């Protein structure tokens, strides 16, 4: 935030904010510290870089996670933006219904949704059964990269739509009329007015989809093939497998956090708002 003016901190504000700071310390700062300590310790309390060095073996997985997340984020954006544009032009009552359909899937746990999706798309799932019934051949919908991306897009789409819709629905209609009055066709209107004004929504949407995407697990394990697992699956494996290796899991987590932090810093350059504030970081 911009305002760096030194204000007097009253006793009351300390009292009101104290629970938050205690909570943040207990459940955010300390756990993060523990992860960092694990990532750089050799198991006997000594400092080591060997955990980090061992990640070289996982370079492919890390890159793949990044690539899949970028793909999923771009696809959700390409779906969410026109969708929001159309919804904003509906009557208020219809907008409410459309919004309900967007938020409804968020009521259901990601694992359950993914499980259901798998049983739909399975080699012997409902879709293939239906296709077989009407005489088409079965399709191989599961256990490939496409299925992973589909699963991610399906799960994270609402997180892209909501921030974009929110910003877009607040654009004053008279601005669009003014643009049209000044010579803009529909396409020019979107490019010169709607896009710049919805940029903050796009940036939030990208962050809200990219961050969970890059740390995805289960979706990739359940719907992907053998070569589709991602950092999230890797970390989970290092924790739960028989030969679990917490320091390596911690090192992987540290890299993941670094990736997220860097991408958010880059994104924030695009989301400077009127007040000079920026989102999240």
């Amino acid at each position, binding site marked *: 935030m911009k305002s760096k003016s030194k204000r007097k901190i009253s006793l009351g504000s300390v009292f009101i904010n104290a629970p938050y700071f205690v909570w943040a310390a207990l459940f955010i700062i300390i756990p993060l510290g523990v992860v960092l300590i694990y990532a750089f310790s050799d198991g006997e309390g000594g400092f080591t870089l060997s955990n980090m060095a061992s990640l070289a073996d996982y370079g492919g997985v890390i890159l793949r996670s990044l690539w899949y997340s970028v793909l999923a984020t771009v696809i959700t954006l390409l779906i969410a933006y026109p969708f929001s544009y159309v919804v904003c032009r509906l009557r208020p009552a219809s907008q409410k219904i459309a919004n309900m359909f967007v938020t409804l899937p968020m009521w259901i746990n990601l694992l359950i949704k993914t499980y259901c999706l798998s049983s739909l798309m399975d080699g012997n799932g409902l879709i293939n059964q239906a296709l077989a019934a009407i005489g088409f051949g079965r399709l191989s919908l599961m256990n490939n990269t496409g299925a992973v991306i589909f699963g991610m897009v399906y799960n994270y789409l609402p997180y892209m739509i909501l921030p974009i819709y929110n910003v877009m629905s607040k654009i*004053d209609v*008279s*601005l669009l*009329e*003014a*643009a*049209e*009055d*000044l*010579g*803009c*066709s529909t396409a*020019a209107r979107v490019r*010169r*007015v709607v896009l*710049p*004004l919805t940029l903050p929504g796009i940036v939030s949407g990208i962050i809200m989809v990219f961050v969970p995407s890059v740390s995805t697990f289960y979706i990739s394990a359940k719907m992907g093939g053998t070569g589709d697992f991602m950092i999230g699956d890797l970390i989970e494996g290092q924790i739960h497998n028989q030969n679990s290796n917490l320091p390596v899991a911690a090192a992987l987590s540290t890299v993941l956090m670094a990736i997220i932090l860097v991408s958010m810093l880059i994104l924030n350059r695009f989301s400077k708002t*009127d007040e000079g504030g920026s989102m999240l970081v």
Partner: protein
Amino acid sequence: MKNGNIVELKNVTLSFDGEKILDSLDLSVRDGEFVTFLGRSGCGKTTTLRIIAGFLTPDEGDVFFDGVRINDVPPYKRPVNTIFQRYALFPHLNVFENVAFGLRVSKTPKEEIGPKVRDMLRLVNLEGYETRKVTKLSGGQQQRVAIARALVNRPKVLLLDEPLSALDAKLRKDMQVELKRIQRETGITFIFVTHDQEEALSMSDTVVVMENGKIQQIGAPVDIYNEPKNAFVADFIGESNIIDGIMNKDDTVTFAGHTFVCVDEGFAHDEPVDVVIRPEDVDIVPPSEGMVKGRITQATFKGDYYELIVDVRGFKWMVQTTDAYAEDQTIGIALDPDAIHVMHKSEFSGLYGDYSTFSDDMDGDPEADDEE
């Protein structure tokens, strides 16, 4: 240009949800004139403006621009620009870029944009504001940016939708003068929408008075004021006493129990009429010399004049005078033939022009709220 009319509406009709907003409107606007659509909120004036801009399409009737029918031409292809009621400046662009918007859309060469924008900013007295954020400007300054943004495109017609309604009284007066100056300097046709009759009279070459989706009268401000066509126009433009009368024959009319000499002709024999007497045209004389007599029921000091409510045979007249009179005093009233204006009866007869329920509280501007 055919017949010198830049904009023409022929038989334009528009309904929303079964309610007629515009009822077979016919209107011609001459090139280069300052036209004002004047009326109360809901009278259809803004709707008419939006039809000319292209944001609305009439259900029936045709819109012509320079003699060409433009019903199906979208707003972005019409050589008109609009100044919106709340300016609608682009918040993501600074003053310069707001003004340059139309030029950039029309792919004007870059080296021409700078000088054109600066010329416009000079015209609206905003030199040096190029890099300011529009959100940080005052209402009057935003107004000027909106004017510059529209005029930089050199439209054939500028449409102004109650552009002064958000400004305070002092700024309003300044902007009225300013707009009139800009219109003269640029020679562009201005079509101005307002509910403020004073604004309309002081700025326009032609005033179009609207009510109930119909044009009630078109004319020069002086003609509209002096020769209102019906009770609505007479009441809406300035103060009027509107009294039932009988037109005995040319130049002779009877009302308030007296037969007056007037200058109106062309009515049927003994036709019932509405007679308009402007409050400032009433001469007060001693009761014995008056054509009619009345009792003052209310006298209000208004600064440069007194406003009297006078009971004349049960009908309350408003009279304005520079002399002081006491309430309950009986006075005589004399009228010059010129002071009497006779109108045919209309759908508005009896609705306006009686001051029996008049109080200063109701003298405010009931239409100050935003329209539509």
